[in-house]
């Protein structure tokens, strides 16, 4: 996405000079806000997040999301049902809104899980080096040889299709990404003087990792969290679309798509709404991730 006319580089340098006296956090904030695409991303995502958090206030779960209403089935968009109704007469808008809650919540937990495991593994590998590093990273290499989707499917296949297993599947399959990032960040930071200094004054290994190293590689991790969050949301809907994820009647976008499939020719709104929801979540998170990367590390940007 880089744009690099000379004028822009110049203005950027000028801006950077101007910021020199501000705190790093403020600089990041300002850089982020200046990136309009990132702002677009964060606005879209904020709307989705709002829907997810206040889903119950927007639409009632029991009466609109899961209740059968045969009299009103397969309606087009109207004032009463903004996005129409599905073949069971359930309000598509309400299901999409509540679907956001399902997707974001599970995506969040799965991302947190993979960050936790991957972060610890990467930190251990990077900090201790030698055979520990070799062992952990070889295992990660092997896992990277299997596409995340396939690894997740294997885990769901073995453990059965339900929410907990899906979180495990998506979380574990994304561990190598975090492990690699954390490890390389740790390796970079480890050699730096202040860590040596911390060691010299007798800080214990654990404290060193926690205090200095991890805090210093926060930037790339935040960026990666955003991108993996997006890929987790896609994975949730993919697995559910294949019938290996969330089970009915819980509303979930991939599930709604596979349910609507047989009616899609006559009622395209049934596949459009959940599809757009998935698209917008991933789209906004990707924009957000790109924006954060540029804001956190201006050197990366061309």
């Amino acid at each position, binding site marked *: 996405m880089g744009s*690099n006319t000379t004028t822009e580089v110049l203005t950027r340098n000028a801006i950077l000079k101007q910021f020199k006296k501000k705190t790093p956090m403020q600089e990041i904030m300002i850089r982020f806000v200046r990136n309009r695409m990132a702002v677009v991303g964060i606005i879209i995502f904020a709307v989705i997040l709002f829907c997810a958090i206040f889903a119950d206030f927007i639409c009632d779960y029991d009466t609109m999301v899961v209740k059968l209403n045969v009299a009103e089935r397969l309606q087009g968009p109207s004032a009463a049902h903004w996005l129409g109704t599905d073949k069971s007469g359930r309000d598509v808008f309400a299901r999409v809104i509540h679907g956001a809650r399902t997707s974001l919540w599970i995506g969040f937990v799965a991302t947190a899980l993979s960050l936790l495991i991957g972060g610890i593994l990467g930190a251990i590998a990077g900090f201790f080096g030698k055979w520990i590093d070799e062992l952990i990273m070889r295992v990660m290499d*092997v896992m990277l040889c299997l*596409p995340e989707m*396939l690894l997740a499917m294997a885990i769901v*296949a073995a453990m059965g299709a339900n929410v907990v297993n899906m979180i495990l599947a998506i979380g574990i399959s994304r561990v190598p990404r975090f492990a690699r990032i954390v490890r390389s960040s740790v390796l970079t930071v480890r050699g730096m003087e202040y860590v040596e200094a911390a060691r010299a004054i007798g800080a214990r290994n654990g404290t060193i990792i926690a205090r200095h190293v991890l805090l210093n590689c926060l930037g790339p991790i935040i960026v990666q969290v955003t991108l993996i969050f997006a890929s987790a949301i896609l994975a949730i809907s*993919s697995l559910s679309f*294949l019938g290996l994820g969330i089970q009915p009647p819980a509303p979930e976008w991939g599930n709604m798509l596979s349910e609507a499939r047989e009616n899609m020719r006559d009622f395209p709104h049934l596949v459009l709404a959940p599809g757009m929801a998935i698209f917008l979540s991933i789209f906004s998170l*990707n924009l957000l991730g790109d924006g954060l990367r540029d804001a956190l590390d201006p050197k990366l940007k*061309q």
Partner: protein
Amino acid sequence: MIKYILKRLLALIPVILGVIFIIQFILYISPNDPAVVILGVDYTPEGAAQVRESLGLNDPFIVQFARYVLDLLRGDFGNSYVTGEPVAVQLAARFPNTLILVVVSMTLCTILSLPIGIQSAVKPNSWFSNITAALGMVGIALPTFWLGLMLILLFAVHLEWLPATGSVSLTGMILPAITLSASFMAGTMRTTRSSMLDCLNQDYIRTAKAKGVSHHDVIDKHALKNALLPIITVVGVNVGTQMGGSVLTETVFSYPGLGIMLTNGIKQTDTPTILGCLVVMAICIGICNLLVDIIFAFVDPRIKSQYSKRG
């Protein structure tokens, strides 16, 4: 050079063993009882015990793993729990289909995204560059299966130009290949663009331009050659991800490949089938990574010189 290739080839073996180990371990700790699947109608506790014994399911995991690997060397993937037929037969029938799909989609992806990426690097900030970049962002975020459904609606149902289901034929391949390549096109395009931009900003390019080398030659001979490395990496990585993506694409288009076989295998808790599909895909991905390394060796002068000096 041969030494380098051999070295990479040897390094592939532990990786593939590792993949088999991981997948088999995941399936090993599964609470599903294979005897239930195998016996079906005829299930009795005694019969189940017998089946478990005859399949060696009571052996320690490491013994089962070794046995599987040894069988694999003989081309034996075991028998399906559901049909009782050898998994290898099914794999042999379906794997070529998936491979063809992935290759076609990779080709499509590369043919389209390379020139677009180069063009938008040559003229950054043009309308063309901005729109393709934006389309790329959209492409990455479009869920594969949804795009597939939409393409069916448009090209098969509404316009009736192409068949709604995928098959190994010229027309049957178009929609699945487009669907599969859409999200990768964006990634390849972005990488091409940014690595081209990197090169174009290098001093030697400016020098070449200053020397009066034609614009065309600068792009072709100097910049592209150096920009190729990251592009090859992305394409190589894509093969793996596309293998994963093919599962969804095949399901949407009822395309007779490994993806549907894997999904069915999972729904039927047919462990040998699941294992077989995943192992074949992993081997295929491993080989692709190897190919990328080899191509690297030819393109990257650093590796080339390192090995040509010695051998």
